[in-house]
């Protein structure tokens, strides 16, 4: 536990010092969403109809783009192999990094989401389920993405390769995240969708750090 907290503290410290990281993710999130009114036109009813989907897709893309650097910096300067040699299980290390990734990207996304919902004319009913679904879904995205981020260590083309690995795995989160919001807007309960999202998260929680640690071991070998 001490090891976990130490790594979280250090990575948060680094994120703070390097500054702007979270801000950049949020900015990308907002820009990606804003592209859609430009793309589909400003009619508010259409925008409202596609709002949950667009916000979720933008969240996937932001999470994915910010994942590229999850292990990269530590890999390049040799910290990663040193981390693997510390008396902390590599799974814990991966979990700590995922936690920091979520704190610095997922959380800001959740905070920014209501703003985007306003811009996209999302019906008022949709706000609460959107936030809850994002709160359950973004940790799952960070967890799943960590595997991809570890797999691309040392490859020639980072970003785009990562997107191909990770986006297909994100689709279940996308489907249930959106349909939770749609359900409430349509007058139904979002309980089943939110339960499934929780299920995905609970399943990812042990699996992804384990797979991520295995991928990191390959990467630094």
């Amino acid at each position: 536990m001490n090891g976990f907290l130490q790594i979280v503290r250090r990575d948060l410290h680094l994120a703070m010092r390097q500054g702007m990281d979270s801000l950049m993710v949020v900015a990308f999130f907002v820009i990606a969403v804003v592209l859609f009114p430009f793309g589909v036109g400003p009619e508010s009813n259409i925008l409202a109809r596609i709002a949950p989907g667009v916000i979720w897709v933008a969240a996937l893309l932001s999470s994915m783009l910010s994942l590229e650097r999850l292990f990269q910096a530590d890999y390049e300067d040799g910290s990663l192999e040193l981390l693997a040699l510390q008396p902390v299980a590599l799974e814990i290390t991966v979990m700590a990094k995922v936690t920091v990734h979520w704190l610095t990207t997922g959380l800001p996304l959740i905070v920014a989401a209501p703003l985007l919902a306003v811009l996209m004319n999302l019906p008022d009913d949709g706000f609460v389920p959107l936030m809850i679904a994002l709160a359950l879904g973004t940790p799952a995205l960070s967890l799943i993405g960590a595997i991809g981020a570890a797999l691309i260590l040392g490859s020639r083309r980072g970003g785009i390769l990562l997107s191909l690995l990770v986006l297909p795995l994100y689709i279940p989160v996308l489907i249930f995240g959106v349909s939770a919001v749609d359900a409430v807007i349509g007058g139904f309960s979002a309980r089943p969708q939110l339960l499934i999202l929780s299920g995905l998260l609970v399943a990812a929680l042990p699996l992804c750090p384990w797979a991520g640690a295995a991928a990191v071991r390959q990467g630094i070998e």
Partner: protein
Amino acid sequence: MPHFTGTDLVCFRGERTVFTDLDFALAPGDALVLRGPNGSGKSSLLRVMAGLSQPLAGTVTWDKEAIAEDPEAHNHRLHYIGHADPVKPVLTVTENLNFWISLRLEGGVDDAIKAALGRLGISHLADVPGRFLSAGQKRRVNLARIVAAPVPLWLLDEPHTALDQAAMDNLDDAIAGHRDGGGMVVMSSHAMAAPEDAQTIDLGHFQERAH
């Protein structure tokens, strides 16, 4: 009395055999120096010893127990220095060290850091951010990391790189002190610098066989 040994090690990297049938045995206080030209496998052997990569055949044991059995326990007892010096440019030297050392020590981290910086002659760098350090200074920070938290086994991959004479002397002192306390050292080295009473393995002779 812990013993650190390897038997019949075979290492295969990047589609070629780097070395075969390699043995070593270290008792407390021993030093082992790896020699050989570029690409002969010094780093590869050190990584096998650290458990960073698995040998194709053979076992590395600590006190007769294979290190692959319990990698975490092995991590507990070793320090490794690789080709790169992981010093974060945005953190000060103390902040950089503080992280690595708090993973190993329960308390007294600050004092340990101060003492280690002093031993490597870089006390004046304590509050300088990593981005202003030269290659040699970074290397000394990395060495301070291993001096600060005592463990029985040091694995050093060309630790003398980028060091000037004064720093080399500091390092040699640190190694001597570590061995006096019953520690073991394995290091690769191009330079002549090596403790006189050290064992040596020359990896150069595997090269002819490998090609």
